[in-house]
């Protein structure tokens, strides 16, 4: 075991996979010499050489597009989008190819690609550096979408993502890149994709969340406890395919559910979870499923960001709303 933050854990997962599989290739803007703007790939070029870990030209569409070609020819590329706000030039390659090659070729050419990207707000960043648009990826048939919330999960999920024969969008909550430290096994281990984790048991209410907001929900749960409310917290871990079973069992027990996420609220993961709950547990509901999400606005620049960010107080407010329904 070794104490790691999220950055260390992701680096460690890449290191392990680069070491054990010659087909794994890591590239993207500034990931080579510099080790990425967040230093996630630091040291890997030195260790594995420029042919396996390298800086690409500045062009997201070709970064993903070349990965599709590499995958077809047997490699397992892990590419980085410098920020999730800059993934859009690659959208066509993701939606038209990475997500579709397997189906188009009836399984002949799978796309074992991982597209890593830091996402989310709360770091006082420039425009386009703070968004949470995971729901867009959730709606694209053919990709999986993974978001870790701890160093431990970041490692185990990334290893699964690299080993998956499907394209995985792997979104990294940059706000907690260095904020959470944890003991993580140094050896290889993996966490299955598509399985949520109950990180706190509770009776009165289920909260589904993921990424950086897991921590905020945990804080809110402490506040709620002082109000005599027992919260069950589910860390979704995988946005698609969603673990309906874990959600179902939890909400059937608690009778109340709320999704907490930072993205714009309309057409969001929260809406989807509400739909799932309605399908799976309508008769168990004691209150309407709520969404605690960002506004349907652009994330404000730093001076206005506090209006947008979801705080433990806001979560508590919503907890009280749902419990007192």
């Amino acid at each position, binding site marked *: 075991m070794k104490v790691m933050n999220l950055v260390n854990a992701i680096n460690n997962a890449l290191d392990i996979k680069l070491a054990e599989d010659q087909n794994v290739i890591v590239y993207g803007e500034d990931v080579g010499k510099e080790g990425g703007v967040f230093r996630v790939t630091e040291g890997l070029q030195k260790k594995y050489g420029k042919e396996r870990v390298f800086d690409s030209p500045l062009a997201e569409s070709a970064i993903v*597009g070349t990965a599709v070609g590499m995958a077809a020819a047997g490699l397992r590329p892990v590419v980085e989008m410098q920020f999730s706000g800059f993934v859009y030039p690659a959208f066509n390659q993701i939606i038209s190819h990475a997500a579709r090659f397997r189906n188009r070729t009836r399984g002949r050419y799978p796309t074992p690609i991982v597209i890593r990207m830091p996402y989310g707000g709360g770091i006082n960043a420039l425009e386009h550096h703070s968004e949470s648009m995971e729901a867009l990826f959730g709606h694209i048939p053919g990709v999986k979408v993974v978001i870790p919330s701890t160093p431990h999960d970041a490692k185990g999920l990334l290893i699964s993502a690299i080993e998956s024969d499907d394209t995985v969008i792997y979104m990294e909550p940059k706000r907690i890149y260095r904020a959470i430290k944890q003991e993580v096994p140094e050896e290889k281990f993996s966490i299955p994709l*598509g399985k949520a984790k109950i990180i706190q048991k509770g009776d009165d209410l289920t909260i589904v969340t993921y990424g950086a907001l897991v921590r905020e929900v945990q804080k809110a749960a402490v506040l709620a406890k002082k109000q005599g409310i027992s919260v069950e917290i589910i860390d979704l871990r995988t946005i698609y395919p969603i673990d309906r079973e874990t959600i179902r069992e939890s909400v059937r027990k608690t009778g109340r559910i709320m999704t907490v996420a930072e993205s714009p609220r309309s057409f969001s993961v929260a809406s989807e979870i509400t739909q799932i709950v309605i399908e799976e547990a309508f008769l168990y509901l004691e209150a309407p499923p709520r969404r605690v999400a960002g506004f349907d606005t652009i994330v404000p620049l730093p001076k206005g960001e506090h209006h947008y960010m979801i705080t433990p107080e806001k979560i508590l407010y919503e907890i009280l709303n749902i419990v007192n329904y």
Partner: protein
Amino acid sequence: MFDKYSPLDDKMVQVMDNEGNIINPDLMPDLSDEQIVKAYKDMLFERTADLMTVSYQRQGRIYTYPPNYGQEAIHIASAFVIEEDDWVVPAFREMGIYLAKGATLKEIFLYFMGYEDGTVFKNAKNILPISVPIASQLPHATGVGYALKYKGLKQAVFAYIGDGGTSEGDFHEALNFAGVWKVPVVFTVQNNQYAISTRKEDQTASINYAVKAIAYGIKGIKVDGNDFFAMFSVVKQARELAVNHYEPVLIEAVTYRKGAHTTSDDPSKYRDQEEEKQWDLRDPLRRLKAYLIKKGLWSDEQEEKLVSEYKKQVDRIFTEAENYGPYLLEDVFKYMYADMPEDLKQQMLEHQRFLRWKQEFFKTQKQAINN
């Protein structure tokens, strides 16, 4: 040839004139008469199959189809160069190449009849599927090239695109990456004068398409794509640059889309017959045939006989394709992920429940639905 050539001069490499005379013997490829006859036959086969496919479409037996008519020399010349282990990255208008690579005509029919099965090219080695979103296939070619180089394989990648496709960002990014990575990729722009209805004057102000190579530090060359010999020589030398020197190459193959853009298109809306006639003189089959006839290697009688054989063959294959098995519900779901997510399984089961209900319900209700 590449050493002396600059696309800035806007010259077009040619070996044979419109009447089949060899006007540039230096570049005349070293092919045997048999090989040349074989090439002509392949072009004839592609053309026959293509024209028949269009007529099947007119009969409503196949869906939208993009004809290859007029572009056969590009395909067959390339096919003659492409080696078994080389990779092909298609656009959608290179039938002759797919066939040469080992795809079957039946598969191609299946694809345009609406089966994904048709673009798997199951027994064809190293060929990617047909790619519809314009230019988006070129980054794949660069990526395959990277993998080949990374693995130390002596293989080339042949990627295809149309003239209009050069305007897309992916064209730029793919060629730029190829230049930086120095990957063994031959990019061929089939300049058939049109992107649907759009001509070069509305597509780009560059003097030609080959000069775009300069932006990527790679070699570019413009060749008469209706001249089998010129096309063969250029592709051959491009392959050598790619495989032996990791030099990507951009080939502009000048040709003419004699048919419609697709069977949904009506070219009379945007071009006149005079232009079409002019290009008939440069038709790739007409030219190679003239060459062969002059050399006493071919005759109209042989052609007539062969075409009628081809027609029978194509028709037999088409009928076979028409009798292809059903498209099952599970085929919609099966290939989405390596392991089918539970949710998808449920969606499939739910739909099956509906289908059972439907059978029952409409049997008992005897209701007519005006669909």
